[in-house]
């Protein structure tokens, strides 16, 4: 009996450690590591990657004066190649003023309403995707490095909980596929680790560029779970957790995905 109790206590001691240690999860590979050689080539070639159409469009929008302030992004931030370099590696990030977690899309919209005094762009609209991918592209090949301590800590733990919680009619957690079955086939595609460094990404299934939240909605639908709204706190927290998981991986947006 004593031995049993000791074993029970030992289990109790070990369990939280196992559940909490990120070191126990396998090394995370970028989304491009799961692509065929042809699609890898397509992603790497700036002349061929269709996502570059949005990057080019974002560059135009960057210097377009809009809103009642009649200001462009460039009027404040100057050359994006210098001012936006590395920015995408730190998002999602908690906005100090509002205490809200913002991803790159929402940061751009916050700037539009507060600085340019213009209407916010719809999530998933062409101009918002273009600006987001243009800004993110300035951090090409730079390692993801988001902050998850301090004000971001509650969002991070919420995202982590979301990732490990079974959900939907299929009763699957994100972790079961993206940790447990990464590299295995799911119909015609290969299951990835769920790295976020390729987003916004051009998915062949969409035949267009799409945001990470669009991809997350597709995943939710896949396990027949609730699809949350674009920019919802659920997906934002998950995005933060995924970004932390992708820590150190180089930004590769616009990624090509199946």
């Amino acid at each position, binding site marked *: 009996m004593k031995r049993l109790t000791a074993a029970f206590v030992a289990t109790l001691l070990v369990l939280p450690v196992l559940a909490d240690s990120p070191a126990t999860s396998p090394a995370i590979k970028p989304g491009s590591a799961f692509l065929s050689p042809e699609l890898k080539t397509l992603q790497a*070639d*700036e*002349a*061929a990657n*269709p996502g*570059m*159409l*949005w990057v*080019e*469009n974002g560059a*135009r*929008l960057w210097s377009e004066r809009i809103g009642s302030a009649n200001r462009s992004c460039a009027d404040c931030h100057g050359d994006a190649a210098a001012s936006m370099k590395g920015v995408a590696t730190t998002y999602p990030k908690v906005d100090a003023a509002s205490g809200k977690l913002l991803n790159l899309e929402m940061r751009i919209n916050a700037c539009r309403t507060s600085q340019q005094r213009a209407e916010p762009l719809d999530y998933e609209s*062409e*101009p918002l995707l273009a600006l987001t991918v243009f800004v993110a592209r300035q951090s090409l090949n730079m390692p993801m490095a988001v902050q998850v301590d301090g004000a971001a800590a509650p969002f991070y733990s919420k995202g982590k909980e979301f990732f490990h919680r079974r959900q939907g009619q299929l009763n699957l957690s994100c972790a079961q596929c993206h940790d447990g079955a990464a590299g295995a086939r799911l119909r015609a595609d290969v299951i990835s680790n769920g790295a976020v460094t390729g987003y916004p990404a051009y998915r*062949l299934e969409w*035949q*267009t560029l799409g945001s990470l939240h669009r991809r997350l909605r597709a995943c939710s639908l896949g396990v027949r779970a609730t699809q949350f709204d674009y920019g919802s706190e659920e997906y934002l927290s998950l995005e933060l957790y995924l970004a932390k998981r992708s820590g150190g991986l180089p930004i590769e947006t616009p990624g090509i995905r199946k």
Partner: protein
Amino acid sequence: MALAIARVAMPATARKGDVIEIKALMRHVMEPGYRVDNRGQIIPRDIVKSLSVMYAGAEVFRMDMHPAVAANPFVVFSTVAVETGELVFTWVDEKGAATVEKKLLTVTE
């Protein structure tokens, strides 16, 4: 909003007689006309029907496109550098509207 609608990548200079590779990417939905929307209505066909490239007074490349071509058609072809001049790319859509992109090729002896 001004959409970037075409991107052409090719060398800016070449020696006379060189074979140069040209990559042309075009932003287009290529709606095939066979799909239905949420209400069961057919989404009208909207495709680019042709790409033609003029260089040195001749049509050096021509392609007719059909509904099976994917969105944002990407075309790679090659031609021979004969003289300094513009390559003029013309995509023509369903309604006859043309998108034109020009790239200068400088040819050295």
